[in-house]
């Protein structure tokens, strides 16, 4: 008899997702469905008909964790549509905000979402962690606070920063604020050391598990990384499985990918059109960024030493965030040292056009596309969030992880096994709120009435 195992509401991720494992009569894993149960809030529908000046504010609300990336990406796309240029300082402030956001988001994932699972075997609560590793939680709170406070200094608030607007940013960063940020950055070095210590231990203890758990082979898509962490302004790099690298523009990328809608999920599955759904899966995010990077920090060298120069290890995502946090701090310091002036905003003149932009959100490549009419009213909006790109890969990784975990258990799945399977999902740091940002054409047919079976 075949069997279905359900993991409802995968814990410790942003938003809701469930996993269904289908086993055949011998207890062998047959199929895995990753259900994004976070309902679509249909931002592409909401944004249609709005004036462009409202778009960055609404776009920030797509996600409560990578708000800065959505806010900035929306501005970039509108600027691309209208051919608006932005002053140098505005660009720097945006980059600063992205780096601060990335630091806070990575700290959240490392210390509150993925970290506990790596430190404690089996299910754990905050209280467990607080009792066993009080220092770990303390460092996590501290590092998150540094990222969030920098956002607050720049944009007035910690979450949903909406300081970017088409044509630049709205507020200047004066000397006093710069000094405050520098002070915060200086205070980060100690917690970073503690974090590095914890994760060095984790790598050396669980190396085999880290390398093999949920490992799959995919392509990678990232902004081209160089000597520093590039999140904002860099060409797109498509790294194939065999190491071949293509340089693309945002418009080209849109032409290269297709999106498939699945009956069971609220989120589409994108893939490279020419390779098909099975082989054309690609991953974004920290693991993609670190592949061809040439950063210079101890954590980066440590990562390359343990995982090799080109790695497909899914659990590597957890570790790849740490060198990035070092780079975030270094990047912010460099930006402030390079000097900021008071020219921050150009006037944007709406005209008819279509614009595409990409930025690196903490979880990976984020794409916004807008078409506006001559008055600046949005006629078409499209958002592809990093977690949307990951849907297919998460499903595959879950399959691999579940196969090893359930191997020889004859279809029995204990709570401990479930936690292990969840770890493979959590490595991607899926943000279901982002992924559910767009309206689907097909939605499981509501039985009575219902409103969303029609495409609006």
């Amino acid at each position, binding site marked *: 008899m075949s069997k279905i195992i359900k993991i409802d509401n995968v814990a410790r991720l942003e938003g809701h997702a469930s996993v269904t494992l289908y086993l055949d009569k011998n207890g062998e894993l047959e199929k895995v469905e990753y259900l994004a149960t976070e309902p679509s809030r249909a931002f592409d529908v909401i944004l*249609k008909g709005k004036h462009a000046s409202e778009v960055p504010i609404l776009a920030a609300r797509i996600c409560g964790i990578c708000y800065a990336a959505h806010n900035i990406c929306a501005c970039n796309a509108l600027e691309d549509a209208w051919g608006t240029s932005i002053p140098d300082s505005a660009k720097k402030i945006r980059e600063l905000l992205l780096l601060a956001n990335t630091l806070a988001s990575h700290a959240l994932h490392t210390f509150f979402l993925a970290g506990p699972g790596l430190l404690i075997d089996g*299910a754990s609560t905050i209280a467990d962690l607080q009792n066993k590793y009080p220092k770990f939680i303390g460092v996590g709170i501290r590092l998150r*606070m540094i990222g969030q406070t920098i956002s607050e200094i720049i944009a007035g608030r910690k979450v949903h920063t909406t300081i970017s607007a088409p044509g630049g940013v709205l*507020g200047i960063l004066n000397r006093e604020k710069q000094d405050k940020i520098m002070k915060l950055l200086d205070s980060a070095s100690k917690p970073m050391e503690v974090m590095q210590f914890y994760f060095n231990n984790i790598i050396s203890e669980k190396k085999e598990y880290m390398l093999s758990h949920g490992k799959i082979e995919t392509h990678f898509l990232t902004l081209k990384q160089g000597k520093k962490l590039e999140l904002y302004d860099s060409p797109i790099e498509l790294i194939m499985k065999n190491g071949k690298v293509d340089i693309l523009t945002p418009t080209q990328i849109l032409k290269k990918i297709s999106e498939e809608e699945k009956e069971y999920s609220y989120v589409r599955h994108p893939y490279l059109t020419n390779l098909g759904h099975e082989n054309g899966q690609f991953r974004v995010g920290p693991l993609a960024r670190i592949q061809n990077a040439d950063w210079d920090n101890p954590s980066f060298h440590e990562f390359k030493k343990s995982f090799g120069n080109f790695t497909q290890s899914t659990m590597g995502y957890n570790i790849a965030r740490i060198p990035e946090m070092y780079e975030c701090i270094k990047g912010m310091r460099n930006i402030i040292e390079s000097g900021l002036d008071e020219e921050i905003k150009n006037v944007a003149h709406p005209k008819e056009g279509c614009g595409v932009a990409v930025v690196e959100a903490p979880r990976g490549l984020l794409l916004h596309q807008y078409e506006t009419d001559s008055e600046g009213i949005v006629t078409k909006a499209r958002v592809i969030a990093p977690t949307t790109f990951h849907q297919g890969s998460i499903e595959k990784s879950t399959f691999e992880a579940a196969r090893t975990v359930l191997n020889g258990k004859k279809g029995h799945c204990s709570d401990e096994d479930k936690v292990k399977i969840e770890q493979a999902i959590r490595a991607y740091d899926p943000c279901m709120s982002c992924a559910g940002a767009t309206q689907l054409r097909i939605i499981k047919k509501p039985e009575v009435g219902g409103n969303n079976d029609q495409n609006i």
Partner: protein
Amino acid sequence: MRISTIQLGGCSGCHISILDIGQDLFKEGINVVHSYLLMDRVTPTIESESDILLIEGAILTNEDEALVKRMAPHTKKVVAVGSCACFGGIACLGNLKTPFTPQKCDSDEPKHKLHPLVCSPKAFIDVDYFIPGCPPPADVIRDTLLALVEDRPVPEITHTVCDECDREKTYKAPPIPPRGKWKTLLDEAPDPKKCLLEQGYLCLGRQTIGGCKASCIKANIPCEGCRGPILLYRGFKKFTDEEKKKVLKCLR
């Protein structure tokens, strides 16, 4: 105090704001018993009794409706955190674009199905406290939470964002620009010292519930009114002696 948090259709931003409380959240006396974001599934969490239930997000699916109905009886106080949970928020914008047909869902058999009308949880359960904001500032959440934990009255906010803003104001009714002539984010950056409304930017600070220390306005961003209109709290108090809870219930 046992605290559980749930997220309905939302962006996780309010959970992030709850986390921003920082060390106070892990203080003695506060025990997080159920939270998708903060803990692994430790058996059995969803039905476990709690003293305070924090709800984020609006009701988007039938499953969301079933979830709030299931959680609410097991808790003593329900707190709606964020504008989606208080008023419907961004998620409710979808209602403007979709024709709605009210329809009851069968809570015994929740299905992943979009709710016919996106609405805030208060449509289905009694909510005791509202903390509006997108997201509410961590300080405000902390004050409310600590007041509940220590059994003090929850601080009530009766002033507007404008009262907290320290820009130069003439307090005269600003000349209202003709339609479409308001300055927007597309124009030049506003003067950081003068009142934004008087400069011609649509700043909603005068109508919006305060408590956020006018942080956006201080960063030169016109108020978006994310904490909702003050009228509901202040306006009606002038006309009636009934207690606040009753007034709010009537307004709903």
